[in-house]
């Protein structure tokens, strides 16, 4: 059976919380083989999501001026 496609996490916080649950479960040593592999797959997806979120605020601080934005909005053709 095809594993269900994981949904996009609600937020960074939600993703981190679920990730912590997964790691706790894995650390408990109580997960069976099938569950372990499923948790690892879900965990990797969450890590990818969180990395992307952090990357979005990690590529160099951008500074814009409100007056420039407003000017751009007022003359969309330019």
């Amino acid at each position, binding site marked *: 059976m095809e594993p269900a496609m994981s949904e996009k996490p609600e937020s960074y916080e939600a993703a981190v919380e679920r990730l912590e649950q997964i790691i706790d479960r*894995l650390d408990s040593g109580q997960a069976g*083989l099938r569950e372990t592999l499923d948790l*690892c797959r879900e965990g990797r997806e969450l890590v990818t999501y969180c990395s992307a979120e952090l990357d979005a605020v*990690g590529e160099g*601080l951008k500074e814009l001026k*409100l007056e420039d934005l407003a000017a751009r909005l007022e003359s969309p053709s330019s």
Partner: protein
Amino acid sequence: MEELPGPFPVGRYARKLQEELRRRARVRLVGEVTGLSRSKVQAYFELRDAEGAVPCAIWLDDLEKAGLPEGGLRDGAEVVIGGGPDYYPGGGQASPSFAFRATQVRLAGEGDLLARLEALRKQLRAEGLFELQKQLARPRLPETIGVVTAESGAARRDLLAGLRRRGWAGTVIWAFVPVQDRRAAPAIAGAIQDLAATPAVEAIVVTRGGGSLADLWAFCDETLCRTVAMLRVPVISAVGHERDSTLIDDVAAVACSTPTHAAEAAVPLDCNAARGALARSAAALRRASTVARSMAPARLGRLDRSASAALDRRRTSLRHVDMALRAHEPERTLERGYALAEDTEGEPVTGAAEALAAGRVRLRFADGRVGARIEQDGTRDE
């Protein structure tokens, strides 16, 4: 048209007006000085707050007696004046004018401003305006924040440094505004509204450095504070120093003591720490995954070994069954001299009635088979 009294000579009316105005009660007014100018004998200015203004005049003699510090009466100064309304009727050539004739003037003290602040604070709290912003959800990791501050100043630099220290490098949209005097409050309110209307902006920081309450007075402006309270984007205020308490601090989602703290409130997630934690999580997952995958063949091996052990056990017991079965095979009996009757299909015939019914049988001996016919006259054991 209704018939009104008069007509009266206008000069007489003007002097009457002057008398009436001069009879009004003398009072004290508080507000900000704007448009200050001087003639040889008088100083003129407007005393203004957000709701209105009154033109004022003071004789330079009275101004000198007030003993203000050098340059104390200047545009932007918050002052308390005492006096009453006056009207100059003009003359044949001179223009008439109205002014509040001040005979006393002093700089507004903390006490005057604190009393106004307290009254405003009470009113806004009673209207529930302190709670609205605090109920808004604040994103832990915003990608874009808006900042309202002065273009030059330590607040801007400190906020940027705070954001960088957090490892946050998203987008900052600056709205540079005057942060002191009468122009400040409307400019700040406008900038906040424009930022809130920008869809990408997830939080707004309003910040300026320390100063006297008079310097920070724009941040106690009623219209500005009502604007902030009603906004759907969280506002983080960091105005003045720790001991300063402005009205915007009360209505904002979060009030911070310094721009550095405001950076932490605007981006609650410490991105540097988060990157470290995420790397550790990724490593833990890789370990778990590797262990699980290496366990899998081992478990299969164990399964394999246990399966073959089970098979061995079955093989052994099968041999025993085999031997037991073989012990009961008819051949062993035939070897001892017995014969087995079989029908034409080779099925054993195990009774006299069955033999009679079959008519013909075959007798199987240890050394071969012979045909036999069944006759009725035999005796049957009952």
